[in-house]
């Protein structure tokens, strides 16, 4: 069959479940959680029981046997109601579980994945360091082999789900002087002696997601916790991020949709100069642009997800989807504030939250600049 935009029955059913759950259970407290910064552990548990945290993983490892398209649809719906919960889900699946799922041995997968897939505990991904952000090969954290152990020293920054994780997959230099070829990935159980999790950052947005620094002070992990072989860490993490971009793109689509929904509703209700402001062409054009960009972003995200499900290359499409969706989300949230006028500037309306939350999607898992570099490289530059 040629081009066909229909979802399969189970993709549609998972999207519907996510939509209902987002509207009925997630949305009501989202604004309040944004104010208090409280991490919604109960919601995470509930989502775990419903299977949200294992959608794209095989049943052999406790997953649901679903696909990337279903997973992206779920991340979009949850993020539409609460992007904090969206990133919790996206980071857990794509970059927390992803490396173990794609590069772990059978034993590692059996040991770490089932509880994570059921959402009983979360998984984290530790790449970023104070001195290694976009330049992730600049990793300074070291792992030194000592008998049947590795001893890890260093630190990581901005790590999502850190406080609630049962394990973190992190990069560390095992062969100094070899650049990215000297970087390896290790699974660090939480808790482990010498491994400490710092206080939560005070963030601009995504207040109800957990982001913290991590410190490694002579942390011993068994050598069997090495992912793949020494020196493969950088490549493993880049492949993981390729997949992660689909979910950050989906998260951005959810926020953009929320911004459009809020702006459209407000524009129809708000009366100025004797008519609803949605009758003004200036407002209509903004709404039309937002709707168009949401549609385009969603198509791009779903196409990248579909390519991944087909086992085809998707680096280029994933980077494009993430780049376009994230910038579209920020634009949509920005215009949603504008359409709300002064009310948009007030925290009583959700649109400023959308804007604060959307901005992260232009930064996390590769900034917009890095996405453009990835795309240009794919073009052969």
């Amino acid at each position, binding site marked *: 069959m040629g081009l066909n935009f229909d979802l399969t*029955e*189970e993709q549609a*059913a*998972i999207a519907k*479940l996510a939509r*209902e*759950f987002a509207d009925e259970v997630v949305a009501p407290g989202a604004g309040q959680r944004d104010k208090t910064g409280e991490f919604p552990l109960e919601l995470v548990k509930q989502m775990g*029981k*419903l*299977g*949200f945290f*294992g*959608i794209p993983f095989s*049943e052999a490892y406790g997953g*649901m*046997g*679903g696909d990337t398209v279903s997973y992206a649809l779920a991340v979009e719906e949850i993020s539409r109601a609460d992007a904090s919960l969206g990133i919790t889900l996206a980071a857990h699946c794509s970059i927390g579980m992803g490396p173990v799922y794609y590069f772990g041995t059978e034993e590692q997968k059996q040991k770490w994945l089932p509880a994570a897939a059921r959402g009983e505990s979360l998984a984290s991904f530790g790449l970023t360091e104070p001195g290694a952000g976009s330049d992730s090969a600049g990793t300074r954290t070291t792992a030194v082999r000592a008998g049947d152990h590795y001893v890890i020293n260093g630190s990581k920054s901005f790590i999502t789900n850190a406080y609630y994780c049962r394990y973190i997959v992190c990069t560390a230099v095992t062969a100094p002087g070899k650049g990215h070829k000297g970087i390896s990935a290790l699974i660090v159980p939480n808790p482990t002696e010498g491994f400490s999790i710092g206080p939560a950052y005070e963030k601009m947005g995504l207040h109800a997601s957990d982001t913290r620094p991590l410190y490694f002070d002579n942390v011993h992990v068994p050598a069997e916790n090495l992912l793949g072989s020494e020196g493969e860490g950088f490549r493993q993490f880049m492949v993981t991020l390729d997949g992660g971009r689909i979910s950050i793109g989906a998260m951005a689509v959810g926020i953009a949709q929320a911004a459009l929904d809020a702006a459209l509703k407000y524009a129809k209700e708000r009366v100025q100069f004797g008519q609803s402001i949605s009758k003004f062409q200036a407002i209509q054009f903004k709404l039309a642009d937002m709707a168009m960009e949401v549609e385009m972003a969603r198509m791009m995200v779903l196409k990248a997800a579909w390519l991944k499900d087909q086992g085809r290359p998707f680096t280029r499409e994933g980077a494009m989807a993430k780049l376009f969706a994230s910038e579209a989300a920020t634009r949509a949230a920005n215009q949603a504030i504008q359409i709300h006028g002064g009310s948009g500037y007030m925290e009583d309306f959700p649109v400023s939250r959308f804007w604060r939350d959307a901005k992260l999607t232009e930064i996390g898992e590769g900034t917009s600049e890095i996405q453009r570099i990835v795309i240009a490289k794919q073009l052969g530059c």
Partner: protein
Amino acid sequence: MEILVLLKQTFDTEAKITVKDGHVVDDDVTLVINPYDEYAVEEALKLREAQGGAVTVVSVGTDRVEEALRRALAMGADEAVLVEAPAGADELTVAHALAEWASAKQWDIVLAGNVSVDSGAGQVALRFAEVLGLPHVAAALKLEVGDGKAVVHRDAEGDTEVLEVTLPTLVTAQQGLNEPRYPSVPGIMKAKRKTIARVTPAAPVAAATVVQSVFQAQQNRRNTMIKGSPAEQAQQLVQLLRGEAKVV
């Protein structure tokens, strides 16, 4: 315990209803499990979880009904059956079609919704029970099953009536009986692999009623703007609610 749930697919309660050429158009609307039937599915699942057994859901309708049946499977039902709707079916036809299929098996309890939110006739479940000679209790708010009996707290126009009935029996669900669960992701994946049995009624019973016409209800909306200070507005509002609307 063999539990049967009679289930109808209806319009989403928020769907916009359009009537064209004397028929309700359903091409573009979202269809859902009739909300009262969803209570019945939930109660059936709870019964099975407490006492063991199997839950079968059955519906009369067209291909589209599969979606509603799959949702019941995703919620946790064990089996689903789709009985093809005989042409020109009314409540009598549907009740007989269901009964014809159901009579081949022994059921301990049959659950259904009190009414469907579309036609709102509240006929099919009770007629079904009559055809099969089962005792029936409508509008349950609470159901306890044990020792071959069911104790049903039923909504009697706002009061609660408590009845004891011997199994097998049919009970219909009222809003408040329970809070239906979400279908889980593993439930959705499992439901995908199940086959929905298809049945064609061998001896359909002709409809006893004829729909003469279907038309869009006219709603005359009136707005009254209340002016004045907040205190005056409140006073006027109370007067209007008392005097005109007669609701307080």
